[in-house]
């Protein structure tokens, strides 16, 4: 417990009268790869987005390292600097090249000088296998390449945690591999990751823990083998039956 990097306590989130998260508790240890599964609308994305406060929780607490994320006193931008996020729809900045995308926040948020930001950008793009695409604009890249740029963009900020929200769902099947490989490498390198995904193979291979959500609560959690092979709850069995 001492080394938990993210602590979520009785998290509630409602959109108006719609209660989406109904009391979620979760601790994420440094170096863990937590895979979050669950049917559509169960609140997986909302949970992830609460962690860096893209959504404002309506109840409970979220702690990142030693700061409470959902406290009005917290400078949320400093927290976000340390929490990388990758979206289903990439959200690359279309007016900037791959390198420009990776450099922007380094320059403006971390105040790195141009040469350093550029060096790190090239380094991170190389890491995700795009050394030869640094000067391409997003529109000139395939979806898989774009998503890898987005990962490099997040990594360049030296995040302590990475949030992945269905990052391969928008990709053509043949492009999924490349992105998952990058994520695997990242996990191997010891990155703490919260991953919402439907990629069971990836979850089995990489995750240290699997969390099954439904109806705004965590229904079941454990090692991937436990959850996938011996689900305890009907809803989990149901869900796994549907997707495999």
């Amino acid at each position, binding site marked *: 417990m001492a080394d938990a990097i993210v602590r979520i306590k009785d998290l509630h989130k409602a959109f108006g009268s719609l209660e989406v998260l109904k009391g979620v508790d979760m601790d994420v240890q440094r170096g863990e790869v937590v895979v979050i599964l669950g049917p559509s609308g169960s609140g997986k994305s909302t949970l992830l987005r609460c962690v860096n406060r*893209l959504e404002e929780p309506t109840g409970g607490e979220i702690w990142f390292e030693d700061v409470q994320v959902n406290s009005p006193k917290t400078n949320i931008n400093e927290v976000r600097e340390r929490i990388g996020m990758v979206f289903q729809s*990439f959200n690359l900045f279309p007016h900037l090249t791959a390198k420009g995308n990776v450099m922007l*926040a380094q320059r403006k948020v971390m105040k790195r000088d141009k040469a350093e930001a550029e060096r790190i950008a090239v380094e991170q793009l190389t890491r995700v296998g795009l050394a030869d695409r640094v000067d391409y604009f997003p*529109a000139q890249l395939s979806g898989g390449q774009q998503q890898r740029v987005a990962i490099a963009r997040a990594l360049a900020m030296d995040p302590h945690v990475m949030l992945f929200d269905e990052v391969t769902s928008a990709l053509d099947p043949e492009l999924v591999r490349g992105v998952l490989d990058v994520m695997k490498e990242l996990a191997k390198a010891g990155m703490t990751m919260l991953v919402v995904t439907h990629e069971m193979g990836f979850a089995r291979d990489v995750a240290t823990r699997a969390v099954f959500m439904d109806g705004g609560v965590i229904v079941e959690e454990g090692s991937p083998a436990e959850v996938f092979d011996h689900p305890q709850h009907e809803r989990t069995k149901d869900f796994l039956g549907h997707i495999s």
Partner: protein
Amino acid sequence: MGDRIVRSMRLRRAAAGALLIVLMLSVAAPALAMSTSRITIDQKTGGLQTRFTYQATADEDAGVDRIDFLFPEGFDTEDVYVELTLLDGLKRIKADYEVEILESGAVSISFDPAVPAKSNLFIEVYDVITPIAGGTYEIPVEYEAVTTDDDTETRKDPGLTVTYATPPRQEALSRWLENQSLVRSWNSVKFLNIFFKPQHIVVAFPLLFKGWLKSLSLVLLAFPISIIGGLLIAFMKMAKIAPVRWIASVYINVIRGTPLFLQIFVVFIGFRTIGIRLPDFLSAVAVLSFNSSAYLAEIFRAGIQSISRGQFEAASSLGMTYWQAMQHVIIPQTVRRVLPTMTSEFILLFKDTALLAAVGIFELMMYSQNYVARNANLTAFTVAAIYYLIITIPLINLVGRLEARLAQSEGGSSAPPKGRHKRGVLLGSGAAAPEGAPAPGLGPAVGSGPQVDFDHSAAKHESR
């Protein structure tokens, strides 16, 4: 045509004949020799058609057989005609005469029979074209006297000395055009004469240039101010604090809901009555800026809101503040997206400067109106139209190209490659792009490309 041009002139019954006679008598001088009482010539600047009048009494001792008006070089007498009145005392007498135009340009009037001694002569030579180059010219007069013993001798008259100013170049050109046969036949077509009269084109073009510069400087000053104002109002309209949003909404609605014409009068007349006095030019810039800010605010707001939320979230997730995200992520994309509509707005604003003529701003429209009123010819409007079009046509063209480029770059992430290639060919070099675009078919199902609900059609941009 080396020969003399000979023209017989019928004595015309002048409408103002009686008046003319009275006039002549009142100025008649005592006659010793052929005494010239008056020679005049109209116009003060050269290059114009004018009338040369000569008024004299024949010598006591001799009749007059012939009078030569020795127009010097530079005068064009090719198309002159002559009106002649001959009086014996108060009695008008019949004169038979012939007019010859000599090669030298001299106008020679021969009488048959000779004009009796002591009779009064009044001669008008019409349609003399004076020399375009300014200067002082002498027009000597010679006549052939026939004495009682039937001798003839050539006598001289002091003649006339005239001084002309050189007309401005465009005036000179206009006057020169006036006499070109091609121009004349052009002008004989009523439509061409009214809207495309060459004489007016050459004068109006340089004259209206000043108005064009004024219109341009108005819009070139007002538009940047409007951009700043528009951004301000756009952000006010998206502000978290409701009253700020309301102020922006009211401003936008009032400005867009009333005619610019009315706004001009409010600023020019209303402000004055409540004691705010600005120089006219500044008032004009102010009213154009007020007006355009409201339109640009809506263009900017729509543009900003058309950028997908994901862009803002991505920037936020990297730790960027609201204004950092705006400045480095949202605004640059918005600019590209609103550029066509903004350009259309610029075109509208430029054309709207014409409304300022109503309050006496000397811009292009005002110049052309004045010219038209002075010259009773609409050619100046055509010239004004050309001046407006010099600016608007290239910009309209630019809007089209910006739109095509935008469609190309935005379609880039989600449109099938087929469409992209086609546009690429049409555009030649479209958006700046390094070598090696991805192979067809690699486009993602959901792109990071912005939403497509933003209306970038200039045609739909409301006019006012």
